[in-house]
């Protein structure tokens, strides 16, 4: 057990899903040719004026409400000054002392225990451009190339309190945050694609000490996995320093995914160094209370509420409810399936089993899914009716997953309807018994496992379509008469 308590706070940047940038009408579409989604405003050319995108404010307020924040009645933008070629203006338009939302929280569950993680603030800001360094790393590069398509894409930055004490808590917080953001539809919140980015502030202090130790900020975390790995690495690094009687330096460190280490990027600039001052080009924002209340009313059911509903109304186990509600895609599919199908537990099993396994192995996202809930419901109904066996259902499912065809269509096309007709099965059994005299003898000699072999032969002969219950019953009857 370590001598130190781990203190972690997160700064999460979420890219908002608007059609246009935060201060100009350039598209936010991803993947355009470099510098084709750029105009004089987002390039910060002299004489241009930024105008706030109304949708950005709406989404930021929605996020604030969903994260239990107080929405500021009076909010403003500020300039954060820094020299770096990812922004052409030498400042980023952000919010400093009057952010749009403050004092929120998220409840997470770790190790069966609920814990509240405070949210300090949420503010709106513009994203920076993308730099491609000409060389293997930024420090050895001969120069860089700037693409400003991303400059001006709207972001909200969600700053947590330093309330997290382990990598597990961070993971739970991030997963819940991501789910909430997805549910309210303000962002895709996908870490791998950069629409959710996370910086980790981490420090250690001896247990019992009231003041925090010196923290390091870790950047360049591109997946949940890298967040977890980087935290574990950084804890060990700081522990080593402290155990050797050294001092942790306040600095920004970058995570190297292949090396599995953090490296010093630059000593942390004091917040004074950014020389924030009110953005004179943008007037203040005074939100209409009635509008905020309307947005609050219109918020969809959030993950924690949905989870409770699945436990209390659908009687799903807590584990199932957690998985189903962890992402909007899963939750929506479940709701869609349940609209056409009554057995909640079976619906959950198929989603968590067959569906998610296939999605993972083929790397398919909810938005790319070919199979629709209604068709899945049809498949499960066919299975329940006994029209197809469980094994066949999985085969049909695989085809539905690949092609998006309806269950009935595939069953018919492939002649997969389950054979429950006793005459038909009886004929097959007679053949099997005639062709396998040794197994029949074994069975009569007391080797009951020979029965399993014979059942297998019947199923094989019927391409798995024979109703297993009928096969078992008929076979038993016939064997006992021999």
């Amino acid at each position: 057990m370590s001598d130190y308590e781990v203190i972690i706070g997160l700064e999460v940047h979420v890219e908002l899903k608007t059609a246009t940038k935060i201060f100009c009408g350039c598209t936010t579409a991803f993947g355009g040719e470099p510098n084709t989604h750029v105009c004089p405003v987002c390039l910060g050319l002299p004489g241009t004026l930024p105008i706030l995108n109304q949708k950005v404010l709406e989404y930021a307020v929605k996020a604030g409400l969903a994260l239990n924040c107080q929405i500021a009645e009076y909010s403003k933008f500020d300039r954060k000054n820094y020299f770096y070629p990812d922004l052409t203006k030498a400042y980023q338009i952000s919010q400093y002392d009057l952010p749009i939302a403050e004092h929120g929280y998220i409840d997470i569950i770790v190790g069966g225990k609920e814990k509240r993680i405070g949210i300090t603030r949420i503010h709106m800001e513009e994203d920076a451009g993308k730099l491609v360094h000409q060389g293997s790393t930024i420090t050895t590069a001969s120069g860089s190339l700037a693409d400003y398509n991303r400059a001006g894409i709207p972001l909200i930055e969600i700053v947590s309190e330093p309330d997290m004490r382990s990598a597990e808590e961070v993971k739970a917080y991030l997963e819940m945050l991501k789910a909430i953001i997805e549910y309210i539809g303000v962002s895709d919140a996908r870490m791998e694609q950069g629409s959710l980015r996370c910086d980790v502030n981490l420090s250690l202090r001896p247990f019992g000490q009231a003041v925090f130790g010196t923290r390091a900020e870790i950047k360049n975390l591109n997946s949940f996995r890298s967040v977890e790995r980087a935290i574990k690495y950084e804890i060990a690094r700081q522990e080593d320093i402290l155990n050797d009687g050294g001092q942790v330096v306040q600095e920004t460190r970058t995570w190297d995914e292949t090396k599995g280490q953090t490296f010093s990027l630059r000593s942390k600039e004091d917040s004074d160094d950014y020389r924030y001052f009110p953005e004179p080009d943008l007037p203040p924002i005074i939100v209409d209370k009635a509008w905020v209340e309307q947005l609050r009313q219109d918020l969809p059911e959030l993950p924690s509420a949905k989870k409770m509903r699945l436990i209390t109304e659908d009687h799903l186990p807590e584990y199932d409810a957690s998985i189903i509600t962890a992402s909007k895609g899963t939750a929506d599919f479940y709701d869609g399936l349940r609209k056409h199908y009554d057995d909640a537990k079976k619906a959950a099993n198929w989603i968590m089993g067959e569906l998610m396994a296939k999605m993972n192995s083929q790397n398919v996202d909810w938005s790319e899914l070919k199979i629709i809930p209604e068709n899945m419901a049809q498949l499960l109904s066919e299975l329940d009716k006994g029209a197809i066996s469980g094994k066949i259902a999985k085969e049909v499912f695989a085809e539905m997953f690949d092609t998006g065809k309806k269950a009935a269509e595939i069953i018919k096309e492939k002649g997969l309807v389950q054979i429950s007709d006793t005459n038909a099965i009886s004929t097959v059994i007679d053949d099997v018994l005639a062709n396998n005299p040794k197994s029949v003898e074994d069975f009569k000699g007391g080797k009951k496992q020979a029965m399993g072999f014979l059942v297998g032969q019947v199923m094989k002969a019927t391409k798995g379509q024979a109703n297993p219950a009928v096969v078992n019953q008929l076979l038993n009857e016939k064997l006992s008469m021999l």
Partner: protein
Amino acid sequence: MMIDRAVVEKVAQLSRLALDEKEIELYIKQLNDILSTMEILKSIDTEGIAPLAHVLPLKNVMRADEVQPSMAKKEILANAPDEIEGMFGVPKIV
């Protein structure tokens, strides 16, 4: 004196300005003059007056989330000191 050499040097560094000795001396004096003048404002009683974030009587100036055409790439890059593969080439950063 409110602004000393250290402050000027730091601000110059943050602004990426290369100042010579004469300029540093000049800016120490000029910046102090400006701040001394601003000191006069401190004599005004601002009790009960809310801080002002913007000088114009405006609020909530916003636009609809509708896409407008961007500028032609050729024009965007026309003033780039160094264009490489449709991007702005910039010197070594760190």
